[in-house]
């Protein structure tokens, strides 16, 4: 008998699956093979140990009642354990829609949310409208009072008239925007949307709140490749791909100004955003797509597609197995915040999420096709470029996260 077969038979013996004849043959082999005998002794000890340790334990009599009592405060989310915060608020949505068209679109796009409005908009060639509003200071939005807000259950993007009603209708001509080579058009910033949201701390059975703010910094027409470079307290810089290379643009955050191009004719795109490592070593079994080590070196994250779509996390300092933070993942973006406390990542559809690994929380922060992201150095602001499947604009957005 080969040792490999003997080892499988040891397993069957321990599980009571071996008949008498085979059992006798195994004993015979064990008498002749010290290596298999040692294996048998060790596995038998493991078996005994597990039998001693593992017994079915009955829960307290009121257990099911207490579980059910804990449920009423927790609504079943529509997807994953994710709270949608913002969907794309496209400039096009601000055009005045006729009542009939609005009704038709709302009926037609109830499943797809506000993005569906863009499909129905036949006036996509209308020049962009400059909101001409001074953006709020983003930093102020982070430390809002932590109070429950009923607006949570009524996402802003589900009410069409909100955006229309707030609109400043001053029209901006192309010449007002910028001196834009080729076919690039850029428009300026919007007022940030702001909302207080509940963040369920599932693991600790408690809740905290946080304030999120989403701001459209600029939009470029006809380009899908925009790469945020840096963000600080005053400006955001980003690359825009044009025919034959890239341009570097800058948007001032604190003034009502259109973005300006500060460098042209860049032949190759420099490395932007936080570094991610493209490797399959850590999670090879599941076919990794993007793997990134946290800046402090303590954690490894993997945004995995293929067989097991998930955002995986692993403690880099122990041999504990990786665990799944969420299955709503699988996109090409995975960027740790500089403080290693948050992860920006996308799902397979390109929707942008932020994860808080230590809190076991993920939030959908933007619904659309996100192309590239970049954290600020304080780990509070995330700048990203995004494009919906139906729009001819690519925007630069900033989201403030708790």
């Amino acid at each position, binding site marked *: 008998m080969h040792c490999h077969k003997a*080892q*499988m038979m040891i*397993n*069957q013996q*321990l*599980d009571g*699956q071996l008949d008498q004849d085979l059992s006798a043959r195994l004993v015979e082999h064990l008498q002749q093979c010290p290596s298999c005998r040692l294996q048998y002794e*060790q*596995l038998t*000890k*493991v*078996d005994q*140990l*597990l*039998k001693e*340790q*593992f*017994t*079915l*334990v*009955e*829960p*307290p009599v009121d*257990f*099911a009642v*207490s*579980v*059910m009592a*804990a*449920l*009423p405060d*927790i609504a*079943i*989310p*529509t*997807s*994953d*354990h994710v709270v949608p915060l913002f969907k794309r608020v496209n400039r096009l949505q601000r055009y005045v829609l006729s009542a009939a068209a609005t009704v038709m679109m709302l009926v037609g796009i109830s499943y797809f949310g506000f993005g569906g409005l863009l499909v129905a908009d036949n006036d996509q060639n209308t020049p962009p409208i400059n909101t001409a509003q001074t953006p709020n200071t983003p930093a102020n939005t982070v430390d809002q009072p932590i109070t429950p807000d009923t607006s949570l259950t009524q996402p802003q993007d589900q009410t069409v008239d909100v955006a229309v009603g707030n609109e400043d209708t001053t029209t901006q001509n192309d010449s007002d925007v910028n001196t834009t080579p080729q076919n690039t058009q850029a428009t300026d910033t919007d007022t940030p949307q702001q909302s207080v949201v509940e963040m369920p701390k*599932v*693991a600790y*059975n408690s809740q905290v709140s946080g304030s999120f703010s989403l701001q459209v910094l600029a939009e470029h027409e006809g380009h899908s490749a925009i790469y945020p470079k840096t963000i600080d307290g005053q400006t955001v810089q980003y690359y825009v791909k044009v025919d034959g290379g890239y341009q570097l643009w800058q948007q001032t955050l604190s003034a009502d100004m259109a973005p300006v191009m500060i460098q042209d004719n860049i032949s190759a795109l420099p490395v932007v955003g936080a570094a991610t490592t493209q490797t399959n070593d850590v999670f090879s079994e599941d076919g990794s797509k993007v793997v990134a080590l946290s800046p402090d070196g303590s954690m490894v994250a993997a945004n995995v597609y293929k067989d097991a779509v998930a955002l995986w996390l692993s*403690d880099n300092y*122990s*041999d*504990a*197995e990786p*665990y*799944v933070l969420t*299955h*709503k993942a699988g996109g090409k973006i995975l960027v740790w915040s500089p403080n290693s406390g948050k992860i920006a990542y996308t799902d397979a559809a390109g929707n942008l999420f932020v994860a808080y690994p*230590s809190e*076991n929380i993920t939030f959908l922060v933007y619904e659309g096709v996100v192309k590239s992201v970049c954290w600020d150095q304080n780990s509070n602001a995330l700048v990203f470029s995004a494009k919906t499947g139906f729009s001819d604009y690519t925007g630069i957005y900033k989201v403030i996260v708790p």
Partner: protein
Amino acid sequence: MMEHLADEKLVALCLQGQKEAYNILVVRYQSRIYSLAYRLGGDYDEARDLAQEAFIRIYQELPQFDASRKFFPWMYRVARNTCINYLQKRSRVVPVEEDIDDLTGMAVRNPDYNPEQSFEKSTVANQVREAILSMPEKYAMPVMLKYLEGLSYQEIGKALDLPQSTVETRLFRGRQILQKKLSDLRITKF
């Protein structure tokens, strides 16, 4: 009468807003999840919290359940991951003194309590628990179902939607991993 409905049908009813359907699932699987939580958590208080968190998480994750698959392995996996995530976080903040307090309390409650013997027992249990926690899920699940619930190869295969031969292989491999981990942890029996 929902009690006789299959798991998957109950999940569908939950997703339609019938919370009583989830109550049936909780009652149906509370022993299994509580036992899992007890083995992973190490004591009854911890088990209660862990099991409750697991059922809450399962409830929250129901929209992600693939209705074409079996509910039990999915539920068991979510429960295990919830427990592990919780314990991993907690292990970073819980001071060692907690264990000592617990042992002192035992001595007060039980005059026949033998601290040395109990400590050794507790240490072995903890090490087995640690070993199980750090095992890859695909090996840990069959091991837990085998030893926690006493299921046969066939029953484990049915529960996990795996061929019997795969169950056998994973149990074999799982034991080998445990044996190695427990040897590394220097359990005296090895």
